[in-house]
């Protein structure tokens, strides 16, 4: 661990903190007020689309209508991507003449991008045409991000609105939210981000792959493509699917430490800003800061652990004449070094992004356990754009409920009583997740078709499987990439986990929003448990860690923890 390393980590945190409020205010203005910049250009596009679609965006929807819109829209976009991938040999912009993507892989990939997971069972540079990358995949980077933010805002509306008794219990209009987020937030920031990346060396072209002669007269074929435009929305929308197999470790995706910094910054920008937006909607900005502080505490714990673990030498190599003061460099790039690799791994797994700038599979056991645990906690530490906020709100409800039980009062949040129906939905949300992860992991680790994909033996093999299902169900998309996931079993099972992990969890959230929207508010009294102070932060962080630990500790013991102790003994597999 070096001073320069810590300095970079601290500057990153300060940059995020500084932009939280402006970003939050901007999103609030776009979604909840008529104050919109550039509306001369953008409003006509919206109006035209509404006319074609027969939608009146001023007409608000109930939670059921909102949920149906989300589901149908996601389903249709998923099918369109599936078709694009299958037929890419007939579509334009395919200079390398790649054939159509096989059905299992196309199913897995279209599910993956629709659900904001961006798990990649393929090697981009030798599988996907330029058209598939930009229209089939990067398109979903916008949509899945916009859908996530829309659902989070709808959920926040349900929690914070005070609806009179006879008025309809609506939570917004999905089509209006979708377009506002895409056109006012995602596209403008992505354009700026993409050009910043190009300025440092990220590529952006449609040329065929050139074959060059190296200095020693060998030949090297170098893949090109429209990379920067995809890279910037992949980070901003916490999608994470790389243009190339090596993802953001690839020098054409992230060529310099500065592009690496910009990438991490884009990942956290919207999730951090949304906490402030939420505070504005609740008319008490402390309600938003509380969420941000809880997230920051969990984030900080992760960064310190990974940085410490990755700075240590690999004990297995101690007998060789090596200078290991630089730390664990297997799978890491020199321009990032250990500090930026550790920071990035925590940012990307906290935020449900899943882009990687170093190979998590080659991290030390404890260094690799943190990304796994970050996802397993439910992608709520900043979390995916939108999904992080609503995931965190679920834990807020749980915390309020447990606090209520401890003091023997009916729990209430923002003046609304939390009752049996809400707690059932919260429990459902919290239970679906471990079931999606642990059952198929257990099955894969005993089935021959599960084991045959492993790249590493011993406890690390279990970690590879566990990481895959955690990443898919949590819609993260990063991997212990040694696992060969391009098999029928993993393509279908992981694809299904992604879809369930996204939509089975979105539905309880929207139902909860609908149910909360209809509640009458009770005025705050002396007996109200305050949810906007540090005591609540402490409670919230504890509940998250306890629920996460109770659920996943046994599995982690069999994987990374036992591997750590075997490593100290110098055991190899």
């Amino acid at each position: 661990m070096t001073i320069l390393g810590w300095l970079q980590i601290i500057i990153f945190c300060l940059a995020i903190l500084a932009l939280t409020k402006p970003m939050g205010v901007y999103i609030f203005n776009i979604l909840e007020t008529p104050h919109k910049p550039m509306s001369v250009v953008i409003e006509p596009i919206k109006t035209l689309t509404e006319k074609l679609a027969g939608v009146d965006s001023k007409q608000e929807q109930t939670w059921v209508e909102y949920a149906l819109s989300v589901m149908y829209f996601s389903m249709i976009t998923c099918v369109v991507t599936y078709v694009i991938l299958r037929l890419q040999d007939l579509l334009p912009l395919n200079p390398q003449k790649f054939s159509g993507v096989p059905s299992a892989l196309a199913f897995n990939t279209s599910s993956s991008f629709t659900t904001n997971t961006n798990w990649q069972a393929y090697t981009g540079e030798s599988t996907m045409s330029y058209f598939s990358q930009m229209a089939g995949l990067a398109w979903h980077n916008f949509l899945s991000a916009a859908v996530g933010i829309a659902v989070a805002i709808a959920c926040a509306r349900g929690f914070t609105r005070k609806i009179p008794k006879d008025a309809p219990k609506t939570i917004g209009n999905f089509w209006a939210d979708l377009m506002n987020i895409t056109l006012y937030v995602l596209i403008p920031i992505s354009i700026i981000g993409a050009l910043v990346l190009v300025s440092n060396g990220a590529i952006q072209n449609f040329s065929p792959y050139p074959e060059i002669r190296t200095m020693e007269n060998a030949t090297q074929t170098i893949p090109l493509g429209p990379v920067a435009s995809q890279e910037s929305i992949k980070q901003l929308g916490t999608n994470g699917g790389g243009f190339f197999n090596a993802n953001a470790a690839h020098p054409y995706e992230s060529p310099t430490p500065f592009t690496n910094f910009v990438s991490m910054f884009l990942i956290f920008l919207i999730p951090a800003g949304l906490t402030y937006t939420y505070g504005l909607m609740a008319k008490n900005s402390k309600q938003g800061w509380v969420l941000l502080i809880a997230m920051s505490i969990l984030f900080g714990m992760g960064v310190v652990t990974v940085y410490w673990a990755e700075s240590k030498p690999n004990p297995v190599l101690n007998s060789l004449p090596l200078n290991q003061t630089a730390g664990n460099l297997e799978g890491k790039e020199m321009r990032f070094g250990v500090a930026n690799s550790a920071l990035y791994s925590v940012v990307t797994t906290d935020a449900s992004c899943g882009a990687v700038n170093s190979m998590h599979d080659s991290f030390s056991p404890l260094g690799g356990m943190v990304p796994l645990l970050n996802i397993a906690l439910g992608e709520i530490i900043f979390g995916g754009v939108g999904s992080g906020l609503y995931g965190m709100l679920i834990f807020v409800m749980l915390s309020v409920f447990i606090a209520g039980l401890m003091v023997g009062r009916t729990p209430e949040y923002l003046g609304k009583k939390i009752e049996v129906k809400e707690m059932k939905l919260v429990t459902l949300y919290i239970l679906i997740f471990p079931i999606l992860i642990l059952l198929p992991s257990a099955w894969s680790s005993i089935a021959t078709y599960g084991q045959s994909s492993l790249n590493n033996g011993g406890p690390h093999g279990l970690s590879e499987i566990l990481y895959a299902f955690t990443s898919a169900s949590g819609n993260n998309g990063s991997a212990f990439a040694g696992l060969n996931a391009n098999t029928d079993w993993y393509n279908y099972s992981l694809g299904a986990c992604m879809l369930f992990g996204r939509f089975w969890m979105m539905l309880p959230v929207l139902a909860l929003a609908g149910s909360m929207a209809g509640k009458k508010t009770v005025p705050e009294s002396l007996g109200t448990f305050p949810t906007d102070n540090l005591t609540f932060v402490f409670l919230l962080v504890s509940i998250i860690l306890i629920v996460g630990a109770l659920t996943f500790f046994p599995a982690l013991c069999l994987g990374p923890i036992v591997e750590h102790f075997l490593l100290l003994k110098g055991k190899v597999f």
Partner: protein
Amino acid sequence: MFKIIWASIVYTFITLILTGIIYPCFVTFCAQMIFPYQANGSFIKNDAGQIVGSELIAQPFQNPIYFQPRPSAAGNGYDPTSSGGSNYAQTSQKLLDRISSDVARLQKENPQAVGSIPVELVTTSGSGLDPDLSPDGAEWQIPRVAAARGVTIERVKQVLDSAIDQPQFGFLGEPRVNVLKLNIALDHRFGVSSK
């Protein structure tokens, strides 16, 4: 119900055109206008004016007169059409075997080297295309390069020192050396042939 399905179809195709086609084409247009060198892959030429590679993509070097980049797990080594890392765990036997054999190779190739081998020279990067070395990783190879070229260690060190990139803006990233640019600089200074 039908209304929602129709709306979904319309919004699907409008967003596909806006974000899937217009957006990347617009970014490509701007990038090609403002940063053509970067947008097309940062390809560099040698003294004779031939393209010898991309400054961002590592290429293999075997001749002892050149500095070598880190080992590569991309395809069969330095294959940009198959980028990626080894994904070996620290407890992997395969990792231990690979590193042991690389250590033996480096010791054989660098009999004059001083000190133990910097770990970056036996570990593969995340992309397999890492174009950089740390200053230490390059400095360890100087005795070999100097001997093969028949020049003094100090003169090679001068070339290396002027090729070191400091952290961006003084604090981002680590000090590093681009191997391809370093080797081009060596050829420029001392000529292409070995002694």
